[in-house]
């Protein structure tokens, strides 16, 4: 279990670094956040691996199940023109506006690339919901109604539809204890880095919540070509604690220094 503690520590440090990078001078450093998010994701996989004891850790499946949550968390973290997570939905220039308009489509595409019928059901459920909520919005212009869609999905302004809860529960077993809706959890958890002050010492429950948020960050990071500790993915399910610990050790020192 020592590796779990280590993975937890790495995740806490990574989250702290991501949070700090958002408040530091000069704005978000894209490269640094990319690297830290990779570490965070890898540490998360290690941390969660014991929930699937004996079974193959299907990192792919986890990612896709949590994809709907990435919109809020990722836009908070990585749009270069944004400093705080209160206003990720306000694009700063024309290019950002266009990419946000395409986000709704690409969301659907991402959900598309999952292979299970469950997720297809989810996809069918999500889109009508978001479009419905969008049409109910008083705003009229195309970009603003897209905003409303995104708002609906990310839960900044709307309560979650039920189907979201079901799908998310199915896919992320680790959240079964917290019976709240995923979007509310998103809200709470994303507020916690701020509320915690420096975001350095995080207790386990916060980290579990944050795990789901960052769980599937970047569909593009789906590693086809070598993200870092891959030993656990290549295993057929027999995860050796020592090996994982050995994998983690260089990361813990390096992430602290970064």
């Amino acid at each position, binding site marked *: 279990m020592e590796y779990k503690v280590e993975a937890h520590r790495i995740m806490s440090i990574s989250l702290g670094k991501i949070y700090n990078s958002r408040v530091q*001078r*000069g704005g978000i450093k894209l490269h640094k956040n*990319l690297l830290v998010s990779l570490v965070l994701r890898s540490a998360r996989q290690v941390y969660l691996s014991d929930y699937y004891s004996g079974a193959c850790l299907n990192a792919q499946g986890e990612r896709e199940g949590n994809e709907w949550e990435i919109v809020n968390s990722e836009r908070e973290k*990585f749009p270069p023109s944004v400093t705080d997570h209160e206003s990720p939905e306000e694009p700063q220039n024309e*290019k950002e506006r266009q990419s946000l308009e395409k986000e709704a489509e690409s969301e659907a595409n991402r959900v598309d690339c999952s292979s299970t019928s469950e997720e297809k059901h989810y996809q069918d459920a999500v889109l009508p919901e978001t479009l419905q909520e969008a049409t109910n919005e008083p705003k009229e212009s195309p970009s603003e109604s897209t905003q409303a869609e995104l708002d609906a999905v990310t839960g900044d302004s709307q309560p979650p539809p039920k189907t979201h809860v079901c799908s998310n529960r199915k896919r992320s077993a680790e959240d079964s204890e917290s019976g709240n809706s995923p979007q509310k959890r998103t809200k709470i958890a994303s507020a916690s880095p701020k509320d915690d002050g420096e975001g350095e010492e995080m207790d386990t429950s916060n980290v579990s919540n944050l795990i789901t948020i960052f769980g599937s960050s970047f569909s593009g990071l789906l590693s086809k*070509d070598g993200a870092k500790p891959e030993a656990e993915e290549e295993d057929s399910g027999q995860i050796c604690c020592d090996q994982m610990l050995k994998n983690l050790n*260089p990361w813990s*020192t390096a992430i602290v220094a970064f």
Partner: protein
Amino acid sequence: MDGHGDAAQSRWCLSQVKGAVDDDVAEADIISAVEFNHSGELLATGDRGGRIVIFQQEPENKSPPVCRAEYSVYSTFQSHEPEFDYLKSLEIEEKINKIRWLPQKNAAHFLLSTNDKTIKLWKISERDKRPEGYNLKEEDGRFRHPSSLTSLRPMDLMVEASPRRVYANAHTYHINSISVNSDNETYLSADDLRVNLWHLDYTDRSFSILSSNAASYCGPHIVDIKPTNMEELTEVITASEFHPLQCNTFVYGSSKGSVRLCDMRASALCDQHSKHVKFSHSGRYMMTRDYLTLKIWDLHMESQPVETFQNDCIFDKFECCWKGDDSEVMSGSYNNFFRLFEREGQQDVTLEASWESGSPGCPLKPWRVSTGSRRKRNEIGVDCLDFSRKVLYTSWHPQENILALATVNNLYIFQEKLDEF
């Protein structure tokens, strides 16, 4: 290191240390860029406070065995100031990310300096005479003799730095590289997702190359890897450099581990693996530094590197540099170590940049990083490495064996002693 039996000393010795040596370091004094000019006579450093300090090599003691690595302050000026982007509510740091010298064409020196968003062209010129005699009257009211009017009188040497161009508003992301083209008319600037091509004379536009491969060269950038959906971002540009001789060739490295060699004429691309890229002086070889290794690539051989050296730095972006004759390369490391790799003999040596470890002129003792539990002298365990002390910025004198590298706020100048054999 030299293989002649006694490995207790390296050929290198500390020459000078610049900067305060107390533990309390102001953030603004932290060095963030180091660069020799093309002759090696001038050494420029940039810091987080946006200042540039230029050191000049002492002209005395020209004979080789005597230590020539004496540098003294030549000019200091404020290059960049902190700015605020009101549209994005972002503060723009004044920290100098890169300095690149232009080849010298006349008496003045020119350099490009950049922070995260803005590149500036600075002219550094000397003035040792000043015109006198504009007034027709002396101070006491008497008229001056006509022959004394408007003449040049010698004065104390003054070095002036004046900004000649400001290239702004072309980068949405943080600038990480600038590189002057061999044509001396253009240069490139790279941020996390784009590479721009500039003409030195024009500040209001950057140039694009129209080619058949429109996907790579489109819009105002010569390289644009920004995905349509930012959430699909997987890699960023980490470094970019022009080929030192071929003005149409440049290279850029990505964080994912690829180097793309680009020909602006024909948009030819090829893939290798790297994180940081530096062309050799001859232009034949390319050095790339990724997380764990330093590789030398022969540009004619695409399949694999010619030489590979192991290193152990994972996250930080350590600069690497070539010796003037391309026979050795150097890179910084943690614990204020720096490593020199000799290509011919495939040997390397690890040295420490520390003002405690020896007096100037004294040869440095090489270090070894060990994984075992036993410690010999000048050995340090890999777990004991101080990750907060890093040598990120380095530069090698283009003609002599003089190294300049920066620890947190100190500039170290090392010289190789040739008469130690």
